[in-house]
């Protein structure tokens, strides 16, 4: 399918449009709420909630006999909510860390769901009757009514987030301060976690149990790299989540046998990888460039100090010294010329072309190493500044470090 076809399909193909819209709304909701989970180091709570929802779905089906999405979502929500409370209760016991609590709830609830499911079906084989749908999601079965449900519940969740913005923010960043202010912290925590439960159970039909947690964590982790502001992060995560949803739905529509859920997750993961590498301040590439720049500067400063030390030992401060001397002093074979050139560019060093006669006679090898370098007056001032402020390398032993010590006149 070509790109224009795809765009046409996104707008006019009924199934694709519904799926893409659903994925977009879900991605935005999960992405925005995921920010709080990621910042509070509860990334895996989503995983536990989505697994814990299984018994609720089965029970809702058994009790009502209905397969309608709102009924199942309600059951999933209640079970997910109970699972979250169970995690909190285990952690409050004080003996077990949170990850253990999450692991227990996740697997035991899921096991209970499987027992219910196989028991309902009357045979020890859970593979029929829609467990597949639940495990991996089936975006193609999403109906406009489901999208409306996600959108409706999602807007309520969004509204609550806006209303309780400062409470959520305090809970996330400084719960002790929030307690000191008299905020009902437990209730705010319940509310925020409740919203997360809602977002997750709404997504189960679309991407399934295993992958839902990625949809909560990935957009938030990606958004975090680009900003230090919570507001920007939440908005950005919503946009990334929605974008990953639409893109994933579109890609899976272009080829046969490409399920939507995993595609959405991979798109979101790719965005995370790109953000980790390319974000302007926190990005790994930016950090590599930054540290290379700092390394270069420190080397140049060290070189300046070497030149300064040489100039102080010589009767004539402006006397040029061969590159080989500077190589020996700095202990570096390579990169000495680069450091010297950067010093020259800032006017702190000058070079002469060395002894042409000896070079021409072949007694000095190499063409590039025949340059001799000398420190300038500006370079000496800069070197003394570095010594005084302590910015830059310390002078070696035997060299006067105190400012104002007797200087050889320039």
């Amino acid at each position, binding site marked *: 399918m070509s790109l224009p076809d795809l765009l046409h399909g996104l707008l006019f193909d009924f199934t694709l449009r519904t799926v893409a819209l659903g994925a977009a709304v879900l991605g935005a909701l999960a992405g925005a709420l995921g920010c709080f989970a990621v910042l509070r180091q509860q990334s895996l709570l989503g995983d536990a909630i989505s697994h814990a929802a299984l018994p609720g779905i089965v029970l809702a089906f058994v009790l009502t006999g209905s397969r309608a999405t709102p009924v199942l979502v309600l059951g999933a929500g209640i079970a997910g909510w109970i699972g979250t409370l169970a995690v909190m209760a285990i952690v409050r016991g004080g*003996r077990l860390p949170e990850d253990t609590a999450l692991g227990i709830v996740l697997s035991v609830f899921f096991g209970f769901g499987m027992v219910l499911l196989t028991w309902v079906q009357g045979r020890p084989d859970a593979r029929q009757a829609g467990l597949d749908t639940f495990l991996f999601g089936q975006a193609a079965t999403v109906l406009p009514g489901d999208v409306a449900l996600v959108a409706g519940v999602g807007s309520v969740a969004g509204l609550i987030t806006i209303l309780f913005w400062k409470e959520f923010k305090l809970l996330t960043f400084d719960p002790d301060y929030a307690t000191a202010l008299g905020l009902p912290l437990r209730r705010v925590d319940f509310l925020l976690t409740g919203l997360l439960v809602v977002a997750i159970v709404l997504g189960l039909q679309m991407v399934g149990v295993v992958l839902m947690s990625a949809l909560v964590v990935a957009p938030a982790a990606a958004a975090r790299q680009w900003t230090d502001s919570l507001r920007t992060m939440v908005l950005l995560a919503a946009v990334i989540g929605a974008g990953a949803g639409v893109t994933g739905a579109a890609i899976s529509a272009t080829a046969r046998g490409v399920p939507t859920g995993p595609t959405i997750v991979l798109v979101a993961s790719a965005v995370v990888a790109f953000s980790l590498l390319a974000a302007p301040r926190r990005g790994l590439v930016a950090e590599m460039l930054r540290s290379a720049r700092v390394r270069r500067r420190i080397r140049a400063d060290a070189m300046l100090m070497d030149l300064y030390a040489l100039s102080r030992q010589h009767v004539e401060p402006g006397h040029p010294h061969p590159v080989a001397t500077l190589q020996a002093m700095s202990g570096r074979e390579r990169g000495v010329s680069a450091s010297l050139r950067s010093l020259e560019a800032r006017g702190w060093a000058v070079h002469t072309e060395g002894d042409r006669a000896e070079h021409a006679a072949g007694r000095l090898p190499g063409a590039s190493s025949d340059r001799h370098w000398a420190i300038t007056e500006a370079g000496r001032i800069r070197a003394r500044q570095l010594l005084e402020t302590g910015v830059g390398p310390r002078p070696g032993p035997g060299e006067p470090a105190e400012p104002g010590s007797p200087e050889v006149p320039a």
Partner: protein
Amino acid sequence: MTAMDLEVQIMAVVVAVACALPGCFLVLRRMALLSDAISHSILLGIVLAFFWVRDLASPVLILAAAVTGVVTVALVEALHATRRVKEDAAIALVFPALFSVAVLLIARHAGDVHLDVDAVLLGELAFAPLRRFSWNGVDLGPKTLWVMGAILLLNAAFLGLFYKELKLSTFDRGLSAALGFSPAVVQYAFMSTVSVTAVGAFDAVGSILVVALMIAPPAAARLLTHRLPLLLLLSAVFAAASALLGFQVALWLDASIAGCMAVATGVLFTGALLLAPDRGVLARLVVRRRQRVEFAGLMLSIHLLNHEGTPRAPEENRLGHLPEHLRWSDDFALRVARHAEREGLLTRSGDGRLDLTPLGREAARHLMVR
């Protein structure tokens, strides 16, 4: 009980104990959810190895899966080491991505792969006796039993041989590094055994319930003991008990054995959470209740001391007055007064008057000086 039932029960116990042993250290090292990550991402190893050898029975699949598990841990740690995401987020980013790749690969090649994804995720112990291991035409029992038996021995041997290294790096990473036991080497060796265990167990109980078997019995044992050897022993006992209990329930309900085993681990854990002697929920309730009465008894003696010898004393120092003055319920006031009397802080007269004993006076003064 048929021979098959017996075989299934033996397998269930072996699988459960094999999972619980490394699980103890997962819980102690706060890496419980790495088992979740590993048990999911091994699917990718299985799929890739299958594309290579084109044989679902090949041991290469198991090996590739185990390697993928270790790679998962390495990826999580690498991502965490960038200091751009926290460890929990790193786990939640890595394993869904690897799992997604596996699901996509299977879906793309659905025609020529008979690899059942939900079989990997869910597993089914009831079918395990059908896969036999035979040599020279002699039936030697179910394959799963051999595989898991070997893994159980491997885990026991690993724990036995590297017990002090594991213990040290779990409880004092810094000291273990200083003494020259590289914590990183111990870590990866340990994660390899976890990975192999998860791979061996998934086809019996499925990858999600492996997490239950690995985490819940050690967590229950952790609530009951502070000592590592006892922890290992209790975990193994709990694991075996959950396996047998789960099997019986599954038989009775005609439901998934693995699911019932997971629920059984959950039931045992809940029991431990409620009944643990020192920090259990019930124990803490009892302690809190007793402390409340004890504290109230001392409050009462202060109250009595305040009014002792004043004109209002006959009115104030009466049992019937306490609900009004101290805002206690009648029941609670009576309980407190009885408790204080038993402790020798006061005496009660028939008409409800309360008088401090010398001991009670002393206690009240002592408290007020502080």
